[in-house]
């Protein structure tokens, strides 16, 4: 493979951003189309990579430049871009949502040029974390995403309960504090690995081969759990999520809820569990407990909300509880479910936020009691909203059912009755989702919303694209699961081996 396809995928939005820099400010439409083109190319390339990946071989494929390219030799840092069954769904997810986010921002009129540039940088940053196989590069990209998020929230955001400045600050501080803990853990792990092996190596594979002492693993895993956990809105480090999403502009909510927070789950598996299996074994029951609390607690929180975005914000905390529960099971079925659920939740929440964004644009409110009967004026919008709602409550036939079911199977087996509390979450979820959906869309038409215009033209892209994925993923779950499994199974084999050695 001579063409560095992954690097090209990463560059597509960056090049688009660079082009937009030279477009005059007034050319709003042009900026949007260039952004659409950049994300579109990235999406096409990631689809190509996804379906070109050979699952029967497995492992890292599509390695750019034939292997790790040395960068900072003393630290063992390499430019190492490759994908496996764990990275690929996340890469695809990023570009699906990125592409849709451009179209979800189609009606923005304020500082379009800057918005598109930040958006593209954000997408590239998120993408980078998923394809980098080097811990240093992974962290580098992770930090890249913080800056555009903050700026985007305070300029294009909107909020009600708290100011958008507060929301933006909260979001950013949380990301930074999380990454600070992470950084300590990563540096200590690296230093220790050099002390053990004598050669600096920052690649995930290299670090995973090191045999860290058990006590060390437990401490380091704890630090990384704090970092990745708060990014994944693990209870009780979740409170940034509802405020942050509510304050952020649509595109940021989509990307943040859709993929950015999945870096937490991805990192937990790829870095923390893969490199520190003994630490994972120690922490797993605690993660499960926090996950279960998160599911039930946030579902109840969502029930108390009247602002649509807060409902989805709490709901996303609740869904991440399922992911944590799946990860904590440390079994193939559960971790597969967790990864698939991250994908599913990403698509569903991005669709949700884009539809809420369109509603807010038209009605200037997200307050559920003020709404009703929108299906009369905007049937297509309602279809998109209902699809996201139904996926959120785990309706079979849509993408999120099978991932949840697999998590249930494994966590019920491993944790027994603890998991039942999480499974009971499906009832509360149904309650708040149906209330939000039905009370917004059904009921008699309201005169004040007669001007509301249905989705049309480019606005249809998020609905068709994300809604299509919801349905296809629901009917053919193996498209996602076979891929995830090819990535997760080897990692878990590695863990089992490590645990057996450690348990000697």
């Amino acid at each position, binding site marked *: 493979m001579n063409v560095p396809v992954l690097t090209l995928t990463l560059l597509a939005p960056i090049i688009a951003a660079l082009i937009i820099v030279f477009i005059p400010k007034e050319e709003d439409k042009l900026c949007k189309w260039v952004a659409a083109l950049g994300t579109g190319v990235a999406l096409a390339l990631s689809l190509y990579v996804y379906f070109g990946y050979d699952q029967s071989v497995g492992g890292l494929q599509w390695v750019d430049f034939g292997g790790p390219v040395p960068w900072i030799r003393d630290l063992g840092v390499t430019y190492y871009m490759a994908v496996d069954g764990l990275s690929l769904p996340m890469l695809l997810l990023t570009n699906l949502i990125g592409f849709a986010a451009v179209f979800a921002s189609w009606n923005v009129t304020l500082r379009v040029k800057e918005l598109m540039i930040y958006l593209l940088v954000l997408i590239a940053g998120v993408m980078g974390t998923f394809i980098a196989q080097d811990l240093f590069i992974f962290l580098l990209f992770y930090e890249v995403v913080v800056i555009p998020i903050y700026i985007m929230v305070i300029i294009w955001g909107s909020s009600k309960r708290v100011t958008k400045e507060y929301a933006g600050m909260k979001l950013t501080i949380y990301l930074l504090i999380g990454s600070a803990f992470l950084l300590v853990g990563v540096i200590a792990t690296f230093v220790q690995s050099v002390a053990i092996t004598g050669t600096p190596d920052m690649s995930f594979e290299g670090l995973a081969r090191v045999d860290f002492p058990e006590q060390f693993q437990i401490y380091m895993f704890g630090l990384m759990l704090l970092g990745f956990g708060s990014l994944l809105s693990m209870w009780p480090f979740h409170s940034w999520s509802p405020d942050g999403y509510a304050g952020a502009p649509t595109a940021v909510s989509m990307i943040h809820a859709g993929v950015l927070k999945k870096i937490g789950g991805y990192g937990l598996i790829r870095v923390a569990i893969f490199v520190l299996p003994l630490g994972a074994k120690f922490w797993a029951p605690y993660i499960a407990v926090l996950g279960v609390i998160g599911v039930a607690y946030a579902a109840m929180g969502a029930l108390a909300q009247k602002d649509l975005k807060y409902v989805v914000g709490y709901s996303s905390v609740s869904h991440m509880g399922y992911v944590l529960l799946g990860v904590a099971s440390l079994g193939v079925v559960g971790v597969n479910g967790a990864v698939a659920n991250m994908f599913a939740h990403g698509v569903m929440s991005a669709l949700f936020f884009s539809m809420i964004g369109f509603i807010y644009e038209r009605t200037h409110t997200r307050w559920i009691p003020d709404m009703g009967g929108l299906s009369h004026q905007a049937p297509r919008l309602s279809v998109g909203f209902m699809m996201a709602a139904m996926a959120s*409550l785990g309706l079979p036939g849509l993408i999120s059912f099978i991932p949840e079911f697999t998590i249930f199977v494994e966590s019920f087996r491993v944790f027994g009755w603890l998991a039942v509390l999480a499974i009971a979450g499906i009832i509360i979820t149904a309650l708040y989702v149906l209330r939000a959906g039905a009370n917004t869309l059904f*009921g*008699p038409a309201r005169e004040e919303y007669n001007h509301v215009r249905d989705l049309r033209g480019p606005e249809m892209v998020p609905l068709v694209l994300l809604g299509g994925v919801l349905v296809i993923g629901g009917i053919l779950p193996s498209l996602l699961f076979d891929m995830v499994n090819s990535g997760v199974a080897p990692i878990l084999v590695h863990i089992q081996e490590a645990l057996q050695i450690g348990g000697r």
Partner: protein
Amino acid sequence: MVQFALNHAWLVPLLPALAFVIIVFLTRPWPRVSSTVSIAAIFSSFVLASSIAYGVFTNPGFIEKPLEYSLRWFGMEGFTVKVGVLLDPTSTMMLFMVSMVAALIQIYSTGYMEGDPQYSVFFSYLSLFAASMLGLVISSNLLQMFVMWELVGLCSFLLIGFYTFKISAREAAKKAFMTTRIGDFGMLLGLLFLQIIFGTLDLTELAQRVPAFEQFGISLGLLTLIAILVFIGPIGKSGQFPLHVWLPDAMEGPTPVSALIHAATMVVAGVYLVGRTLFLFAEVPGAMEVVAFIGAFTALFAATIALTQREIKRILAYSTVSQLGYMMLALGVGSLSAGMFHLWTHAFFKALMFLGAGSVLHALHNKADVWDMGGLIKKMPITGWTFVIGGLAIAGIPPFAGFWSKDEILAVTLQYATHGHSLGYVLFFMATFTAFLTAFYMWRMIFLTFFGKEKPENHPHESPRSMTFPLIVLAGFATLGGLIGTPWANYWSKWIHFGQPHHGEPSIGLMLLSVFLGVAGIGLAYIFYYKDEEKLRVKQLAERYQTLYKISFNKYYVDELYLWFTRTVVDAGAKVLYWFDIHVVDGIIDGMAGFTKVSGRGLRYLQTGKLQTYALVFFLAVLVITVVLAFGNPTSAGILGGGK
């Protein structure tokens, strides 16, 4: 043709599903095209299902060895799920019944829904509904069945809430979804147990493994729990007490939808599921008693509510709840054939009566109170007389269909009692008393609606042929549909049975009792609501037993209790938690931020830029260092670079 149908049974649910896709994406702007597509699809399914039925019922081998084929849906190490087709007499019977009733209801809908702005959408939902139900019926795997089960729930949600301009429809739709969701939660737990313990959700494999449950290391107690958990799903879906509350509200949907939900899809799914997993229940007598008792109790409970209801569709709805109780009772005492037989006959007479009620509402412009009707049979002879047939069938008057199936249930319950289950006598009493009540309240409705004096303000007219044709066909089945299961020539239980086929001797005494109860009920209704033109006697009764009347009319206040629980307990809990989240969890975080702010303000004095302050600090530092060097130990001095 038969061989093709047997090998392509998956087409039966797939065709209506395709119709759904076609209507949604292509033909939506053209109502008539949409309904044609929809009806063509369901009719083709019906033809296929008929061929399958012919193939299965002419070949006795299918009873012992069902036709099964499947393919991998998704899988991973330790958890693989297949989707497939399982054709045995039970599923074949259901395919035939569901596709036929659905086709008739769609034909009826072309008349009933004429001119509705959402006509195409309505037909797309009906197609999806039929597709999900047919998919549920042929499923070879419990997870596949659960998927279809939930899709059925989705469709009923959409159809109950179809008149989106009505608040009541919206609330009813939510209620239906939520109530059945609670049932689904229990069922999901049951499925998880089965998957974890037996390693499969495949029906055939489970049927082989469950009887040997001790080899899988579980106790009878746990298996009982599993069975009861699975049964919670059908409690929700089939409107059994205490999750019955959604079903009467489901009449908020257009009437053809009510007919579909009450007769052929949705509610019978729960009964069917219990029938499908009877191998599980049969192992655990405790769970069987639960099923039987809940069934019998629901039958009686709903019948007492139906006595006082005024709206025609509501009376029918409670009668459905009650009849579903009968089916559960039959399954609970261990007779698959009696339960399925009643499901079969009930589908015809209940669809018939709901469509008849729709015809009445159509004629009276949605005036629903039976007390405002009267004498309609003169203006609407087809609707009226077919409705009477339905009434005779449900009251258990021979030779109409309901008589045979109800008699069968009474017979198996009595048999259960005489075989050492003392609970059986209680069940038998409840079932017989319900039979009497059923005849009474159904005929109360019929006398009030179709007989007696005409009301001058009503201008009824017979419905168009598209609506009366299905009534006639259904009336035919409601009359003759039970004859395949008479005790003298019981083809039914020869085909559809669990374990050994049922060899009950025809019991003339029981039949006489059954007929007597039916006739007595009708007779009493005749005296109260036909002979007594001013209805003085019933009014007096209602007056005298006011409390009882109110309890019955208000459905034992179960709905109010649930509403109170949701509004007060759940919502208040949510509010308390939210308060906790904002003020405690977030408060701690904000507090930490505040601490940083305050400490920052304090530490600011370190960098005031004032030379005097710096000089003071410098002086103090030197002082401290001197003291440390003078009195401290050498190692602590080491930090100052003082060497060893």
